[in-house]
């Protein structure tokens, strides 16, 4: 496992608020890496910086040694880092298959002139095949013609992952994928993530569900109040005094 995605002194300041303060950690290629911390620790802000949604106030994000901090979201995506969103963010008005087809935008870049003349049949067939493949992977094959907005919550979550997966990503940034899932759905989702990992996709995951995090992650980074707190395997983090203090509250942070 080599260093693949590296954060160096990542800082984000909103006016007087220091949301993320000098955060540094490394994500190994082909691993599932968890990012945890109490509410307001700056996990989602970190995510938004990596995916290009925010430009960091200072610090660097290195992907294979290239600095990608401050690039627009689609530029980051084109380098293989694709994110999902916290809520069920989908193209609700489009069908499930069309959602997945949007996900194939990068591998099968549309060309308007070819589209008018009809010279893009191969690309369209390839995109459709890839979209179907992504849907099958997440068990949505039978729902391809449904309207995405009509799906159940669990299926919408899976579709969000399928859209990201359809683009052949190297890194998937998953923002709270287990929120609002029952234990059975969580178990299925964990199984899918293990299969993504087996596919060679690196996963960086923000999550509150400790059972999922502990059962899934190779490495866990814990943050608190925007700062790096601890890092290690699930067993280390579970018993780390600083982490326990941050979650259960210690004398230091009581205002």
């Amino acid at each position, binding site marked *: 496992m080599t260093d693949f995605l590296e954060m160096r002194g990542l800082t984000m300041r909103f006016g007087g608020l220091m949301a993320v303060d000098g955060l540094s950690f490394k994500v190994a290629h082909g691993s599932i890496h968890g990012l945890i911390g109490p509410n307001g620790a700056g996990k989602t802000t970190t995510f938004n910086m990596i*995916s290009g*949604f925010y430009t960091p106030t200072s610090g660097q994000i290195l992907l294979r040694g290239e600095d990608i901090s401050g690039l*627009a*979201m*689609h530029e980051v*995506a*084109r380098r293989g880092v*694709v*994110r*999902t*969103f916290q809520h069920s*963010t*989908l*193209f*609700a*008005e*489009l069908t499930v298959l*069309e959602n997945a*087809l*949007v*996900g194939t*935008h*990068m591998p*099968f870049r*549309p*060309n*308007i002139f070819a*589209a*008018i003349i*009809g010279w*893009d049949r191969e*690309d*369209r067939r390839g*995109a459709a095949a890839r979209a179907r493949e992504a849907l099958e992977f997440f068990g949505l*094959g*039978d729902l*391809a*013609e449904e309207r995405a907005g009509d799906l159940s919550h669990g299926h919408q979550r899976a579709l969000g992952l399928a*859209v*990201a997966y359809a*683009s052949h990503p190297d890194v998937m940034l998953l923002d709270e994928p287990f929120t609002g899932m029952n234990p059975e759905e969580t178990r299925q989702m964990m199984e899918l993530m293990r299969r993504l990992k087996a596919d060679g996709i690196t996963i960086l995951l923000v999550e509150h569900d400790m059972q999922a995090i502990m059962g899934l992650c190779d490495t866990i980074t814990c943050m608190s109040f925007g700062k790096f707190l601890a890092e290690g395997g699930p067993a280390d983090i579970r018993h780390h005094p600083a982490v326990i203090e941050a979650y259960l509250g210690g004398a230091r942070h009581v205002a």
Partner: protein
Amino acid sequence: MLKPVMFLLGAAALIALPHGLSFSQQEILVFLVINILLVMSYRLLTLTGEWSLGHVVIMGVGAYASALMTKNLGVPVPVGMILGGVTAALLAVLLSFPLFRMKGFYFLIGSFAAGEIIRLIWKRFREPFGGARGISGIDPMPDFSLGFYSFDFFEPVSYYYFAGTIVAVCLWVLWRIEKSPVGLTFHAVHWQDKLAQASGVNLRAYRTLAFAIASGFAGIAGALQAHYVGTVNPNSFDIEVMVFVLTWAIVGGTTTFYGPILGCVLLTVINEVVLRGMGFEQARPLFYGAIMILSILFLPNGLESIVQKILPRKATAKPDRKAAA
């Protein structure tokens, strides 16, 4: 097999249509065809979720460009029409730099301001735009013969056939774009721009692309009108005309391809038959305003929603996929 038959019948009906009409009705038919292209090009922009108030002025850019090029530079009229469209598209690309810093309501107002600036430039500069009076004596389309039919462009019927053919080709191109992956990306940009961007879509590029294509076809519509009427002036592209376009689009509905055509045809027919028939033509803005309000209140999804209710939905008629699975 039903489809080509229906298509041929439809085409035959459109070819036969002007022969049952009076001379003034034939002239209205020409404008109707041009307006269909205008409102359909507008629809392509609305696919990305942006509504512009400068679309009619952009149409005017095509009209002015084609008129000036044919008049001053001696460009042949058909080439001038295409160049009019190209000019409008290029101007749209330029305008996209300031305008697409804005979205939604702000874009709407920004596009209105940009349109007014262009209109004021036409009014202010007598050379070459002719000031408030505009340009007159624009070269008409030269007559030509196809062997089985001779085009005589003093006859509205001939211009109807000519403009109708061009509009049909343009609509076909618009249709191809919408049904392509590019069209799907436009929809994606509309419904969830953040998710589209996370999938690698360059939002600015796609918004600009839709704006430029819509403007290009509007420019062709403008050129078609300029060479038919023979004059252009700034007031024929003012906000009142823009409101007509908006009304056609809203009353017809913009989620289907045929929606704006329905709106444009129906409102033009009502306007010409009812209002002109009753000698009430001055009341057109009043009438359009009332129709728009009534349509928003009682038919929020436009005329197309009525058609969708009558025709069975395609999505339900797909039993073959389940049989395969």
